[in-house]
């Protein structure tokens, strides 16, 4: 990216909003951060946020529902050792700020002399999603038109499609972060997410298919190359194909995961377990294992918050640290954890730009951004040919992990049997379960076809949801438990 184009218009737009429209004053910020950073305090910050979310949804062939939510406020944080005091308010006046800061500080059981902090507005390091037009400003009528077309297209795709549920949610988040060093980081974070669910019915058998996509993109993204029709087709195909699905097998078997969204494997199996907080506290199955082999030598796992326009990307994390690219596992060896400021400081490591929060009402936590496995050298078709009997899973619903025992699950919503090297019958959805520190050791082939997901992922931790991305090339896992209903072997 050309550095001379910075500071981006996004950052200055956010600054204008908070300083000019809302009337925040630099000296208020200096006073607040300065008083928050009392003697013995290790860190403090302010996180201002103004967020607008607009959602338009379709059902029964009509767009009958539209919502628009606006919420703004500030979160004040004071950190002493491993202790956090946090207060948030929707009152963005000097009085509101003083009260929030005092509360955050008092509840960290601290007080006393304030330090003097001079705030300096910082040039953003990245410019990953500056758009020609904010998606929130696109007239609702255009979103209605797209959804209407989705409905017509899906019903025309196959007569067995009986209902289509679709939604477009666009978000505009303006943030202004003031760090303990007095750095002021501003950003405008757009987000677009479209989802299509098709219900197919035949002889009393009802099935559904869901697909979608988006990112930190302009609204046009959905229309480029008729992308929204691609999402619709995928959802419709999944629903119709599921009409013929047979019972999924039950037991341990070879599993081949297709490229893209099946990368949720990494998110659950290793990603959460490598978040700094769990490792500092020693409650993760990966705690104390830096330098150990945790995956096959074919595996290099990366978390990268700097990929342009991706759903999981950010110019700076929610503590003002520029996002980066962190290699977590290199050729099978565990080399790094994902860090926010608090856990990095306590573990003697550097922040990796992974301090994220759902909103001003939440303190930051170490979180993933876009997590994926680097491509290997195998031909994806050859990988399938190499399997005598197994499961080929290409699309998933959600997943979950118990970071302490290391057991994780992810649920296939589109999967097929592989029989004698060929993809054969579609099977019903099933949950796959495995052990995080072991599963990547069983990866015996990695394809050259790395794909990132379409941009629909949301990750939950400690009651906080944040948008994330995942990615994977085709991989072969020699032994994973498939939770179908037909015991095999």
């Amino acid at each position: 990216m050309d550095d001379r184009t910075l500071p981006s218009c996004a950052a200055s737009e956010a600054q204008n909003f908070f300083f000019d429209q809302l009337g925040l004053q630099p000296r208020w910020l200096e006073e607040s951060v300065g008083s928050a950073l009392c003697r013995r305090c290790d860190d403090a910050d302010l996180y201002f946020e103004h967020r607008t979310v607009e959602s338009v949804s379709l059902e029964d062939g009509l767009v009958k529902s539209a919502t628009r939510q606006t919420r703004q406020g500030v979160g004040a944080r004071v950190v002493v050792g491993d202790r956090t005091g946090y207060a948030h308010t929707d009152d963005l006046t000097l009085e509101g700020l003083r009260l929030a800061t005092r509360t955050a500080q008092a509840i960290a059981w601290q007080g006393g002399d304030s330090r003097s902090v001079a705030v300096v507005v910082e040039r953003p390091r990245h410019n990953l999603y500056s758009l020609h037009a904010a998606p929130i400003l696109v007239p609702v009528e255009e979103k209605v038109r797209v959804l209407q077309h989705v409905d017509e297209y899906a019903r025309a795709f196959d007569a067995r499609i009986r209902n289509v549920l679709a939604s477009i949610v666009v978000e505009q988040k303006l943030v202004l972060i003031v760090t303990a060093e007095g750095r002021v980081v501003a950003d405008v974070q757009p987000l677009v997410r479209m989802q299509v669910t098709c219900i197919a019915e035949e002889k009393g058998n009802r099935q559904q298919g869901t697909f979608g996509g988006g990112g930190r993109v302009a609204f046009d993204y959905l229309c480029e190359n008729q992308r929204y029709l691609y999402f619709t087709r995928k959802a419709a195909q999944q629903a119709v194909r599921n009409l013929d699905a047979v019972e999924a097998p039950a037991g341990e078997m070879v599993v081949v995961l297709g490229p893209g969204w099946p990368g949720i494997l990494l998110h659950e199996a290793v990603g959460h377990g490598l978040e700094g907080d769990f490792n500092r506290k020693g409650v993760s199955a990966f705690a104390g294992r830096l330098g150990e082999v945790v995956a096959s030598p074919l595996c290099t796992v990366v978390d990268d918050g700097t990929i342009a326009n991706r759903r999981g990307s950010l110019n700076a994390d929610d503590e003002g640290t520029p996002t980066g690219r962190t290699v977590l596992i290199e050729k099978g060896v565990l080399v790094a954890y994902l860090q926010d400021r608090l856990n990095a400081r306590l573990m003697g490591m550097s922040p990796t730009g992974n301090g994220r929060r759902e909103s001003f009402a939440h303190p930051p936590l170490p979180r993933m951004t876009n997590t994926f496995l680097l491509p290997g050298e195998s031909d994806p078709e050859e990988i399938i040919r190499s399997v005598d009997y197994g499961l080929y899973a290409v699309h998933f619903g959600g997943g979950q992990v118990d970071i302490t025992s290391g057991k994780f699950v992810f649920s296939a919503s589109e999967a097929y049997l592989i029989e004698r090297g060929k993809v054969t019958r579609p099977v019903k959805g099933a949950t796959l379960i495995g052990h995080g520190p072991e599963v990547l050791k069983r990866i015996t082939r990695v394809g050259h076809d790395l794909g990132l997901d379409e941009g629909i992922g949301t990750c939950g931790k400690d009651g906080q949801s944040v948008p994330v991305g995942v990615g994977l090339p085709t991989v072969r896992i020699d032994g994973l438990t498939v939770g179908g209903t037909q015991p095999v072997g």
Partner: protein
Amino acid sequence: MLLPEAAELVLRAAKANGATAADVVVVRTRTLTVGVRSGAIEKVAQAEEKQLGLRVFVGKRSAVCSTSSFAPEALRDFASAACALAKVVAEDNYAGLADLEEQTLEGPDLQLFDSRVSELGPDEARQLAERAERSALEFDVRIVNSEGAECSTESTETWYASTMGFAAGYSATVISVSVVPVAKGSNGMQRDFWYSVVRQLERLASPEDIGRKAAERTLRRLEARSVKSCEVPVVFDSETAASLLGHLAQAVIGQSIFRGTSFLVGRLGRQIAPNFVNIVDDARIPAALGSKPFDAEGVPTRRLGIVEGGYLRSYLMDSYSARRLGFEKSTGSASRAVGSPPFAAPTNFFLLPGQVPAEEIVKSLKRGLYVTNLIGFGVNLTTGDYSRGAGGLWIENGQLTFPVEEVTVAGNLLDMFARIEAVGSDLELRRRVASPTILIGKLTVAGRG
């Protein structure tokens, strides 16, 4: 600005901007969370926030908007924007406010508010959390660590008003204490948790009991292993059985039925479970977590029989889904996030207890799986297909033997409810959706080896 005043102001502004009807929900929330870990404070978070959600109708078109800015000028602009948004969407013949002929909001005090909870300070909250954690850590030497204990309180004031003249509100409190101990065994670490969530401080379980129970649950997972895939009877303890009730609750809400996204479409009036299965949704239980005097459309709440003698007797409906499904009235089940349209939802939704103690159910089995934890999202409510990660204890000759993990349990929810073979006597309304222990005749357990 007070909540009723703000509500009144936006309703007037909505009408001035062309709304033919409108309703508004205003919520003010105060929260306190204190987290402790290894005996020391880890986090204290405190906040006060308010939000207003407005639903406007312009004829048969509607939109919902929410805001946190309560300045009069901002609220007027907000109401006008909501009306503009409504004019862009399609007409919906079923759109409209709930019919509020019977305005009987009288009834017993639901005991939703406790000033001892709303006034609980950070120091008292810290002590409750510390006691729970200490009790867990001291329970057994194998409890070596903790993800911490937390005590949080929430006080909310809810105000609902509509252009039909309805205006009422209520206050409610919730306090919770939970702890997550970590134990170490020869083949790795395990964690589990226990909790108590109540509206009244005096109903809170003792922190010592919470800690002990959490430690016991964690310890019994040590040295867990997978089992060979098989088809066996499966006992769901009251915690995991509640999640099955949750799936049923989602499948009986009006929206799931008319969208065709429920495995119970077309089953109203039909038998879906054995005769001894009775499921209710009751919003009028004093001090219960899901209780409320009226729903998010101002309709008085009541006790609903959902499954009676095994027969599906009622859906959960807000006024929109009731109209869509051809019923005269809603069931008073509307719930509402401030920024979204009303949606039917369970209040206190539970399976009525049977006569058999939970231990007897386990004793009755020669072989089977006793499930105490479930993870993942492998539930397809449209088809009822069910496949989730599970952990628990293996049953052999009526005894709980070794702990089990890294297995899945799979089946179909329709079959699972039809195959309930026993319902325990151990119902406790620990959450909004609750259940006693239940036995399901046969499910597929997938594992290794």
